[in-house]
């Protein structure tokens, strides 16, 4: 197990390296002069541009700049926002809890709804239950999250007045964003749970459990679901990443503070150090989450033996 974790960590390194290179190169891929683009809305004198270029170390050779970028990033320094001059890392850490809260709540909702729908559909395969569960799943992957968010606001905030429409804070601020964000993921989890459950229910040990007279719920849940969930776990990491990226949209819809909205505003403001910092942070975080999921997967399923 230790060797497996070490091997996976080692395999992750080139990816993280590639991610830093890609994020760093963003400035170079901007058509035209990045400094002029960032300063575009302000009055720019040639010496302002020169000062900015020196501040961002853009007057140095590429390799040297990249080296500096990695070295600083490894030490937790992601540069400073060119708008409010605050350290990018500080801005991210300040808003990170809000975003993680939203993504985790959405994942929890998605898992609860998705697994329930999947189990019901598999146990009653080809019944009306199956058909309607899968219809919900199909609708779930087709609904735009931002539209669902607006509809929820319209119904539950503007018409019924049950929940606050915008802003961050307590649980009441979390319910609608988590629903809007998680529905798409729940649909994917429902489909996967259904097919994996159908595979498991055909196994001989299920027949055995039934034959020895175990109650149906015990067979379905303990013998069936626990085994069927193993493939589902693997997509949790993937879905968590999707949800994390999805907060970009949902935080904008609900006017919620978080790094998703931070990123959108940074892009609209052409605040490149901030854009690079957030993108790098989320991508590396996502890689690490997936690493953790792989390790959990190996730990949960004793059938899996890694080198």
């Amino acid at each position, binding site marked *: 197990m230790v060797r497996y974790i070490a091997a996976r960590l080692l395999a992750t390194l080139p*990816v993280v390296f590639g991610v830093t290179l890609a994020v760093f190169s963003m400035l170079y891929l901007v058509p035209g002069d990045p400094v002029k683009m960032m300063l575009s809305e302000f009055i720019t004198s040639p010496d302002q541009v020169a000062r900015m270029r020196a501040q961002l170390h853009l007057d140095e050779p590429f390799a040297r700049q990249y080296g500096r970028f990695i070295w600083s990033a490894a030490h937790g320094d992601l540069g400073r926002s060119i708008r409010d001059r605050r350290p990018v890392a500080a801005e991210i850490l300040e808003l990170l809890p809000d975003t993680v809260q939203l993504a985790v709540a959405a994942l929890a909702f998605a898992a609860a709804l998705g697994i329930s729908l999947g189990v019901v559909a598999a146990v009653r395969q080809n019944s009306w239950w199956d058909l309607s569960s899968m219809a919900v799943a*199909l609708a779930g992957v087709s609904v735009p999250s931002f539209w669902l968010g607006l509809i929820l606001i319209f119904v539950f905030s503007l018409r019924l007045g049950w929940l606050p429409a915008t802003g961050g804070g307590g649980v009441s601020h979390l319910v609608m964003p988590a629903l809007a964000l998680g529905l798409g993921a729940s649909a994917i989890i429902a489909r996967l749970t259904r097919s994996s459950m159908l595979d498991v229910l055909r196994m001989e040990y299920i027949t055995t459990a039934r034959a020895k007279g175990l109650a149906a719920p015990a067979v379905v849940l303990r013998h069936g679901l626990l085994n069927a969930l193993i493939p589902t776990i693997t997509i949790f990491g993937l879905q968590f990443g999707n*949800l994390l990226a999805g907060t*970009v*949209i949902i935080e904008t819809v609900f006017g919620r503070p978080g790094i998703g909205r931070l990123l959108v505003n940074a892009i609209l403001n052409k605040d490149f150090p901030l854009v690079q910092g957030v993108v790098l942070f989320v991508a590396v975080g996502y890689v690490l989450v997936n690493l953790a999921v792989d390790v959990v997967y190996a730990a949960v399923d004793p059938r899996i033996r890694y080198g």
Partner: protein
Amino acid sequence: MPRWTPAYDMADAPSALAGTAHPARAPRTRWQMLAPRLRRHRGALVGLGIVTALAAVAAFQNLLAPHSPTRIDVTAALEGPSRAHPMGTDQYGRDVYSRVVHGSGISLSVGAISVGIAATVGTAVGLVAGYAGGLVDGVLMRVIDVMLAFPGILLALGIVSVLGPSLRNLMIAVGIAAIPFYARLVRGSVLVAKQQLYVDAARVIGVPVRVILARHILPNVVAPIIVAATLGMGTAILSAAALSFIGLGSQPPTPEWGRMLSEGRDYLRDAWWISTFPGLAIMLTVLGVNMLGDGLRDVLDPRLRV
């Protein structure tokens, strides 16, 4: 080569008429085998119906839309659905129905073009990586791994932030972001296909690599690509609408559905119709594409069934 194009069916028609080689008129081309199964697949038919209807709306938008999608008429602003404006008017007095009609062409082409970019580049990368193996494969797949490290919509977001917000850049960004999906899919199929004896045989008799790839390997991966591209179109349309919604895609006054939704956001309390109808339109489009994709997957490639 499997016969995908109607042209092949036509080419085979004389022998079928002669009735010597196939006395029972057995279905021979892959399409002839699949068509009846597709016709029996209710979901696929519904999906195909929705997509065809939307394409027709896009094609005849000038006939179907009673008003210009961009003409501003402040005297008619924020009117609810009526006989003159079936979906109401927005804050500038533009006819929401006409804008939704004109938006269909934009969404379908954004979906088709970005999937086209992704599938073409991804297939090329997958073919080369899978067939060449070794260092080429290693380098290409590491690049793909790096792309996959940016979850969900983040890669497209990063690319748009570099290129600048516009409809064209949006298609490029959404397209590039989906490349890894096709590259991995195709590479996997190529790794299996290149073990086949007929590929070895072709290589031994000196068939050029280019021809082996095009004639002996590619046909094996066509089915999964078609399925993935159809389902990918739903994702592409959703991503593109989402990016437009947050202001990083199409710019005003383009009648793009995602953009229309965000423009109606501030008027949600009093004019729900501005945001509701474009949202329904996105959902219907993606639903149609997904149903068609699910059906194609069931028929063409049962291995992909989830």
